[in-house]
């Protein structure tokens, strides 16, 4: 893996189908539909998240360097690569099982606060999906709500604390308007953390000096939703949906 200059990041993540290559801008194509999605879709979603984190790793680390300890990109990259590899190897049969396995893998590989928090988000969302073979947007939204609530409880944070929740909560609220709307809300939420003063995690030690920097956790959380919209659009295109 080392010293292969110019190797495309996707190759390292073991992309399974070509669809993730189609990274059209979310405002470019059609709105992704809320059609039912199967286990394969959720594996593809994780791959898309891993790719996005791979591409944004330096930026996440840079943001983390301003108000944290400069490792968020590295840690998330390691965890998501492991999660993708685990679900591709094991191929769990349902969307819920895919997310539970991915969550468990994150807890075992990421460390820091991000490991338990992201792990809990995926694990609890997966558990809420139960063993349904396919889930539509409404069902996913409900399950994500359960997952995000669990994250809030575990981290003891609320909206406005300059955390992951500041991207996740607006995204959940916008999910009713579709996946693109959720992705935009998550990105806006991450951007809105700039003027906030951190009250949780390592950035909180900076007090007033945390103001003026975008939260790395909110930034990586937004990638979950942009990747979700992108994956859905690609799947719609493949299936020839309306």
């Amino acid at each position, binding site marked *: *893996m*080392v*010293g*292969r*200059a*110019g*190797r495309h*990041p996707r190759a*390292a993540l073991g992309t399974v189908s070509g669809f993730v290559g189609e990274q059209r801008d979310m405002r470019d194509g059609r709105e992704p539909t809320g059609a039912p999605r199967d286990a394969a879709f959720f594996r593809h979603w994780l791959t898309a998240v891993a790719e996005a984190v791979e591409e944004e790793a*330096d930026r996440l*680390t840079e943001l983390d*360097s*301003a*108000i*944290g*300890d*400069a*490792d968020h*990109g*590295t*840690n998330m*990259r*390691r965890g998501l*690569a*492991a999660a*993708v*590899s*685990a679900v591709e190897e094991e191929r769990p049969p349902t969307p819920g099982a895919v997310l539970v396995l991915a969550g468990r893998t994150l*807890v*075992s*590989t*990421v*460390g*820091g*606060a*991000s*490991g*338990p*928090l992201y792990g809990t988000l995926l694990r609890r969302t997966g558990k809420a999906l139960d063993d349904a073979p396919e889930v539509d947007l409404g069902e996913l939204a409900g399950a994500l709500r359960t997952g995000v609530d669990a994250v809030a409880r*575990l*981290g003891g944070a609320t909206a406005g604390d300059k955390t992951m929740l500041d991207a996740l909560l607006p995204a959940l609220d916008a999910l009713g308007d579709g996946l693109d709307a959720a992705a935009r809300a998550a990105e806006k939420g991450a951007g809105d953390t700039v003027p906030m*003063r951190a*009250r*949780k*995690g*390592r950035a*909180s*030690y*900076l*007090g007033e*000096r945390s103001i003026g920097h975008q939260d790395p956790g909110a930034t990586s959380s937004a990638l979950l939703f942009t990747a979700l919209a992108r994956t859905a659009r690609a799947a719609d295109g493949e299936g020839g949906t309306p």
Partner: protein
Amino acid sequence: MPSTRRPDPRGAVVGRPSEWKSDRWTAYAGTDGSLAVKQLINVPERVVTDALRGMAAAHPELSVDVERRVVVRRDAPVAGKVALVSGGGSGHEPLHGGFVGPGMLDAACPGEVFTSPVPDQMARAAAAVDSGEGVLFVVKNYTGDVLNFDMAAELAEDEGVRVAKVLVQDDVAVTDSTFTAGRRGTGGTLFVEKIAGAAAAEGAPLERVERVARRVAEACRSFGVALTACTTPAKGGPTFDLPPGELELGIGIHGEPGRERRPMMTSGEIADATVDALLADDPPNGPVLALVNGMGGTPLLELYGFNAEVQRALGERGVAVPRTLVGNYVTSLDMAGCSVTLCQVDEELLRWWDAPVATPALRWGR
């Protein structure tokens, strides 16, 4: 960081050392030379693994699981003894692995640099060192450490291991705990691990060892000062920007900026500011142990000079210091700077501090 290296799914870097080519130095030379901090490493992804390999080679009295990242004293589990397990992000060496051995920790779990270890590590460590008398987790108060140790405690208890936890939160630079993650655990960790370790070695049961550890944790206060930022391997450059003529007061041990920046001060002025911050938080009403700690990049020559000023400052304020430890014990990679930890002790705690210890980094008595 402009890097073409990709970690494999387990985060390991494969191939032979001669094949590990780092593009770091050339990349920086072409952009901003000021970022080119030179480090004695192969590739960033392997820093912790390589250090554990080296530790295993240097310390046959320890059993080092390089792959699973657990450092255990070789004679564990010690029959009839409560075991102490700690862990945390790497980059603070010798904390925690350097404190594994008779009289202190039974096992340590290093995470990635500045990243708490994962629950599987501590659960595995607990299972390896438990003699049946139970295990005490020594946890520094950071969100990640607390979450991962909590999950580990659940895993270990599922396996039938009795687990108690003590939280170290000694950093007085964090003043408004309501609006932060609470006080950080820093230099006080050394006192907790040494003194509770001595109590455990004496045969105290789990509840007693836990009580002793908590007493020590509550008796510790720390304050740190950075003269430079530190360089994480992942970033390859300084974690924050500290101009040449300034220092940072009230720093933590993760390269995070502190709470106040001032023009450069003398060793004596830094000692006064540090001692004042410590005493303002909790004026001791008895003798204290002092740890005059280097952050990793400050020479021992300067640290001893600084200790002279710390002892002067404490003396002027009427604080008795029966024991002092000077050196790099709770570090922050290559950061230049220092911290002072005071631990108020009574006869009993002092006796446990003086008790024999035999670890890579602390060794006396017997």
